[in-house]
């Protein structure tokens, strides 16, 4: 019984981290159509922010609060200096953000060195039967769903969300209504970056902090968003659930690496069957 509970918890946790880490990309790629290969480095910078904040004596919670601000600002700068020149040139955007990704990894390595730094995981453990569960992972799960809810609310119930969605649909129309599309793109990109910063920050105590941190996640989050398809938040969430399930089940049966391989193989086969992603399948005919 305890084993079942702990396994179920592990599966939920895998799914939650997938959603938490993929959300920023879902906004930037899903909404804006920008394939940002530096997304993983946004996670990494978020994690380093927490590292620096804690190294200066503040708590992890302060670090987690600061991370999205720092990475959001970084996203703003990157949008203004690089991305905005490349809208509509999808492959060029990929190449430029790839360069950015390499550059950020290199720079952070130069400044902080290539070693993994640890951050003490707060909140301690609880015991379930003969198993020990980290309370922090409960926090991660709650965080994932809170952020998902907030993002959903932002895009569906606020003026910014409405304007942003309208801009992605038809920039000419909104500029006729007196909205500057360039500013909406900027804001949306920065928001997506901030989400990644938050995700990286929350995960930092669990993963450790290292310049190549993002590499472990980039493949997963791209697969999740692509499989999610055109209905961005709901699609990404569903894909997170399905792929997280595949990954954790295979991982329990073998090793985490095979879990990832299985997830990738599953995703590629799924895309062969549903080229528009999971939510593209729902939307048919609407």
């Amino acid at each position, binding site marked *: 019984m305890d084993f079942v509970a702990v396994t179920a918890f592990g599966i939920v946790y895998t799914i939650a981290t997938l959603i938490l880490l993929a959300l920023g990309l879902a906004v930037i790629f899903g909404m804006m159509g920008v394939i940002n*290969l530096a997304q993983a480095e946004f996670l990494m910078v978020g994690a380093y922010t927490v590292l620096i904040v804690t190294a200066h004596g503040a708590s992890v919670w302060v670090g987690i609060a600061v991370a999205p601000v720092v990475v959001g600002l970084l996203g703003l700068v990157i949008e203004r200096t*690089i991305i905005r020149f490349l809208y509509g040139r999808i492959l060029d955007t990929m190449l430029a953000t*790839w360069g950015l990704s*390499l550059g950020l*990894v290199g720079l952070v390595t130069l400044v902080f060195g290539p070693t993994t730094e640890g951050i003490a995981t707060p909140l301690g453990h609880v015991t379930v039967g003969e198993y020990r569960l980290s309370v922090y992972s409960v926090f991660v799960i709650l965080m994932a769903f809170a952020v998902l809810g907030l993002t959903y609310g932002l895009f569906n119930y606020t003026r910014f969300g409405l304007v942003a969605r309208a801009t992605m649909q038809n920039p000419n129309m909104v500029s006729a209504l007196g909205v500057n599309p360039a500013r909406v793109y900027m804001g949306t990109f920065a928001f997506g970056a901030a989400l990644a910063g938050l995700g990286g920050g929350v995960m930092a105590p669990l993963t450790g902090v290292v310049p190549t941190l993002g590499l472990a996640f980039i493949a997963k989050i791209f697969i999740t968003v692509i499989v999610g398809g055109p209905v961005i938040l709901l699609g990404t969430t569903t894909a997170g659930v399905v792929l997280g399930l595949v990954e954790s089940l295979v991982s329990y049966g073998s090793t985490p690496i095979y879990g990832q391989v299985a997830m990738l193989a599953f995703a*590629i086969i799924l895309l062969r069957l549903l080229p528009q992603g999971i939510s593209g399948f729902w939307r048919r005919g609407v």
Partner: protein
Amino acid sequence: MTAWALWAVAVAVVAALPAVLSPFQIVQLTVFMIYSLLALSLDLIWGFGGILSFGQAAFFGVGGYVYGIVGINSGSTTLALIAGVAGAAGLAALLGYFTFYGRVGSMYFAVITLTVTLILHQVMGTTADPRYAVGQARLGGYNGMTNIPSLALEVPGRAPLTLDPVQLFYVVGGLLLLVLALTRALVRGSFGRVLAAIREDELRTELLGYDPRWRKLVTFAISGSIAGLAGGLFAGWGNFMNPQVFSMFQSALVVIWVMVGGRSTLYGAVVGTLVVQSLTNYLGTASVTYTTVALGTALVVIVLLFPRGLVPAIEGAVRRVSGRRPPAPEFAR
């Protein structure tokens, strides 16, 4: 006429270089030519197929690892090289089947090829334990696979003759020129014309009775096999393979070579590789970190300022400066 002259010059240059360069430079140039093959494989699928693949490093790595596994177990490096090519082509065909027949969009394709590469990187990294071995060949995790046999000339009925550096240089140079000639024939022939038509208007070409999925698949498999050939040669050159060949850095490098040399020319891929690698060598391999930063910056700058490639941009500039003699009517006032 001029085309034949150029080929003759290329052959003559390759033939003459060992007499001019030091043994060390020959060894270096051999690996540059192997990389040129890898760049060529990308230019075929990207420049002519119109499909950007970030997975060429994966096929290169698979070619190398398969060469190592078969070479160590069978002792025959010819067999190993063929197996490496076949393994890489097989992986490309499998990936191509799922993506092209699923009509996955071109940007998704790029991302999927990249994720496959990164996951191979992680998978090969976890194979440090001795139980991860194929026959005699230990995969070796991040430490890599060692004791891969050097490329040898194998004539039936005689003892295999391991190639010395100059001989290896000739073999690699010969293969590079051969692959260059074959891919050129491919893209200029009827297959290439249909490919160009698909690139320009896929639906129209379909309505003329061509199956674009099949042609993309074939092109991608050929591209994968060329990358696999490069990987096999690389393993035979260095007697060593490690998961770094699947890294982001390596994958990006391939794209940079082609971007610098310019797309859709084939020879540009070779020029780009030679220029970038020589420059990297000249600047010194002081630290991989600095190279990474430089590489990343270069990628951003090229995309923003020279989207058509660096060599074509320089050619254009030279033509504009010295171009008074053959006046271009559009630009002349």
